């Protein structure tokens, strides 16, 4: 019950984002969630896509190196306090980074969470009855 994330390193300069996006467009990959951040003289783009394997293959073929990581995708209510409650569930565990999307039709939000050790938080969320989404769910959204 994990979602695979693709991250790509980019030069921190104009137009560098368009190369990977063009590749994904041409291979008909849909982006479910996205975050772009700036680190030491590099930019980093992190993506959740519908067709993970196709995206990885297309990027590699185009000479772009995709970095894979496993994320927890936790469904929470699109309502005040729900993020707070979710975080209370994993109190004491270090979260490396996170981002989220909203599924308006379902009145739900999805949190994408990155941990160095994914097993403990996964177990805690399951125990508290949270729904964890998989890469398959990303395909079928």
């Amino acid at each position, binding site marked *: 019950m994990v979602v695979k994330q693709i991250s790509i390193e980019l030069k921190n300069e104009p137009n560098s984002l368009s190369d990977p996006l063009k590749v994904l467009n041409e291979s008909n990959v849909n982006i479910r969630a996205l975050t772009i951040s700036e680190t030491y003289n590099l930019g*980093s783009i992190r993506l959740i896509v519908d067709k993970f394997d196709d995206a990885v293959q297309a990027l590699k073929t185009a000479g772009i190196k995709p970095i894979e990581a496993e994320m927890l995708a936790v469904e929470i209510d699109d309502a005040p306090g729900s993020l707070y409650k979710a975080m209370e569930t994993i109190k004491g565990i270090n979260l490396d980074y996170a981002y989220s999307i909203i599924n308006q039709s379902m009145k739900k939000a999805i949190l994408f969470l990155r941990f160095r050790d994914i097993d403990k938080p996964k177990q805690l969320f399951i125990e508290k009855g949270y729904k964890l989404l998989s890469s398959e769910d990303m395909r079928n959204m």
Partner: protein
Amino acid sequence: MIWDVKNETMPAAQLKELQSERLRAIIKKVYDKVPFYKAKMDEADVKPSDIRDISDLSKLPFTTKDEMRDVYPYGLLTVDLKDIVEIHTSSGTTGKPVVGAYTQGDIGLWSEIMARTLSMGGVTEKDVVQNAYGYGLFTGGLGAHYGIRRVGAACLPISGGNTKRQLEMMQDFGTTVLCCTPSYALYIAEAGREAGIDFRMLGLEKGFFGAEPWSENMRREIEARLHIKAYDIFGLTEIIGPGVAAECELQNMLHVFEDHFFPEIIDPATGNPVPDGQKGELVFTTLTKEGTPVIRYRTRDITFLTREPCSCGRTSVRMHRLLGRTDDMLIIRGVNVYPSQVEQVLIKAEGVEPHYQILVEKRDKMDCLEVDVEMTDELFREMPDDMKYRRKPKELEIEHALHNTLLVHCKVTLVAPKSIPRSEGKAKRIIDKRSI
């Protein structure tokens, strides 16, 4: 122009007599004064009286860089310390540095041979010489300095670096001669072009470039960009510094100042001398140096010699520009670097494995050294590929440690465990992309 007509054009027979006489004297002196040489000669069962002329040189044992380090700091001293006026060292590569200690006479000798070097390219007292070799323990800066002074030219002792100021001085003082490493010459040319300087409008006429291997292509590039004539000069700290050999105006191989530094070429595997024209390891014996004479020093540089007469009129043997090394030493911006030094630093660093790869390439005309190092599994879990920015402090820490040891800057990149290709047998540790 020939600086020292008598010694530089000496007929072969007379030169051989002079070398033999000097060799007898130096061997007697080191045998009497330096326990290191006495022990080596005793072990090889050679007495000073066995050395009658220069052809007996091959009876003597070689001296290696490691042996010179073992007797650090004063073990090669042939005179009292009170007679030493200056001390230089190599960059302190693997472990202790090699020491060159100079008497007043040695400084005079150094001035003379560097004056010969500069005169070969036509430098006179009318010239303004910008000396961009580094001043300090490195022999390049002061060696060139003494030669410039001896010729009587005006010396600008600017030392290396600060390219903007190099260009300013060049314009303001009407520099006619540039001394630096060949890669720095190209860097200056590039910086000058970017600053809109037309080198044809400057007074620059010639340059003396050494301390690192370069090529005919690089010479042509320097000459075209700076609009000068570029001369190759050769020397090494173990022998004296710059001024061991240099090109004349014909730019066809380097004249060795063999009345002072006697060259041999040996087969590096057997140690046997090889004939002229055949490639092998260059070996030097100092015939006149007083402070720290060196007998049959194995340079680990590969080249060959020729005794064919040069039309410049000088009678000395000539050596081809360096053709390689017998070991894995790299020369980065004029500094000697051994992969084993990198390894020693990495072994001491926490969180990394001694699996590494060294990449050397030219960037903006300058040598760039990059080291990829594998992290331990533990560190990799802390700093996975999607969070590479976390590696920066660790990378900087290792860069700093490497800089302290190598004395050149390098860029360190931490990489995932087992990501550096393993090869069977000898690891491919070095990728040198420089085409010299």
